[in-house]
């Protein structure tokens, strides 16, 4: 029963709080609860009953038409008594893409898979030098491995790991491209998708915090083996330090894997909810900043090359780059202020 209450709460969350809407909420809840009770007495299980009630609920947009149009009709009463299905007045803004529950689910599942692949790639990159370190250490310490063997196998492993990692990045990035629009473009979620995304976002927040904490702690603790090995070994050079370094690499690699998988998961929820940097407002200013950038940087390059060739003072003219970088921050900031005040005036 609470599931049903929560379902309705979510659907009505973003609607204005008027008397008509509150009444609608109460009545719809009552109808759903009556249906639920009857299904239970018919012998359906809890899950079955809830599932049936929710699937037969319908679309909240039907109500929108009734309740919003109702306000308009009160102002301009028509003489006819017949019911007219008035069309919803669309606002003057561009129609936004609507994302359904299915699409949102696909997105989150694809993100999870994608993040794991990327994490694997990064793990390989981070651990790519380990064989080299290990064999190099063995060679240095007790000569059990020749220099050529150490270098050969170590470097071989390094390159193979990195190649594999890069291949993973490329293949998966291409497969994930179809979801880029969620990050870049503005959109609207339908009700089912909105309540789905909202719940995931909230339930994942504590898990996310916990995971990041674990990762950070691992990074901090990763140096302890090396310190201990150094202390224990003292003046003697032995394999302990090498092993400690390998352990450090492993811990860091694992921590980064956690950052990547948890971070991307959380990011995907934020993107669906259009929070923070993914909010429509931010997306607009990002567009604007990119436009400014596309003019700004070529101009800077032209100035740099022009002055440098004319004066030959390459040793000084490089200064233009850090200056231009900081200045761009100012230009972009001004651009944001102008565009947001222009919007307010509209």
């Amino acid at each position, binding site marked *: 029963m609470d599931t049903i209450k929560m379902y309705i709460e979510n659907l009505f969350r973003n609607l204005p709080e008027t008397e*008509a809407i509150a009444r*609608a909420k109460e*009545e*719809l809840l*009552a*109808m*759903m609860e*009556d*249906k639920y009770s*009857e299904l239970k007495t018919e012998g359906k299980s809890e899950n079955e009953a809830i599932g049936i009630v929710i699937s*037969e*609920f*319908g*679309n*909240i947009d*039907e*109500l929108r*038409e*009734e*309740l919003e149009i*109702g306000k308009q*009709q009160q102002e301009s009463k028509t003489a006819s*008594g*017949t*019911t007219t*299905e008035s069309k919803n007045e669309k606002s003057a803004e561009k129609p936004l893409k609507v994302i359904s529950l299915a699409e949102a689910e696909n997105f989150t599942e694809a993100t999870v898979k994608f993040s794991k692949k990327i994490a694997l790639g990064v793990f390989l990159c981070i651990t790519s030098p380990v064989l080299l370190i290990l064999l190099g250490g063995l060679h240095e310490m007790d000569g059990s491995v020749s220099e050529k063997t150490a270098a050969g196998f170590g470097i071989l492993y390094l390159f193979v790991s990195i190649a594999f990692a890069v291949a993973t990045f490329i293949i998966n990035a291409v497969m994930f491209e179809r979801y880029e629009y969620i990050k870049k473009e503005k959109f609207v979620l339908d009700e089912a998708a909105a309540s789905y995304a909202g719940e995931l976002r909230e339930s994942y927040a504590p898990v996310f915090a916990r995971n990041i904490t674990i990762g950070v702690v691992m990074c901090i603790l990763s140096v302890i083996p090396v310190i201990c090995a150094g202390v224990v070994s003292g003046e003697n050079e032995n394999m302990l330090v090498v092993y400690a370094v390998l352990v450090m690499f492993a811990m860091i690699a694992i921590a980064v894997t956690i950052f990547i998988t948890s971070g991307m998961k959380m990011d995907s929820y934020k993107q669906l909810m259009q929070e923070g940097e993914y909010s429509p407002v931010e997306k607009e200013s990002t567009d604007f900043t990119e436009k400014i950038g596309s003019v700004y940087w070529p101009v800077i390059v032209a100035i740099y090359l022009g002055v440098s060739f004319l004066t030959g003072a390459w040793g000084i003219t490089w200064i233009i780059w850090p200056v231009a970088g900081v200045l761009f921050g100012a230009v972009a900031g001004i651009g944001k202020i102008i565009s947001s005040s222009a919007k307010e005036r509209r």
Partner: protein
Amino acid sequence: MISSDGIRGYNDMIILYLIIRQESYGYEISKQIRDLSEGKYVIKETTLYSAFTRLEKNGMINSYFGDETNGKRRTYYKVTEAGKSYYAEKCGEWILTKEVVDRFVINV
């Protein structure tokens, strides 16, 4: 199962029929629609509530609160005179529509 598009114009008529027959409340009306159609039409809660709101706004039905024995406060609906004549109108419209459309139907 009937598509909601096909039946949209006649939801009001169906609901009025039941309310004219007997004053009733939300879920009971939904249940009667399902039972009388032998499961072929299951009306959505949102569709039903929108229809109630619309019919009441246009003066076809009135709502009142009744107390059930298990303590729940239920909204009951009853028909008005305007509602009855609107119902009759819609019945006539359907009979005409059915007759016209039937001329274009091939019974396979």
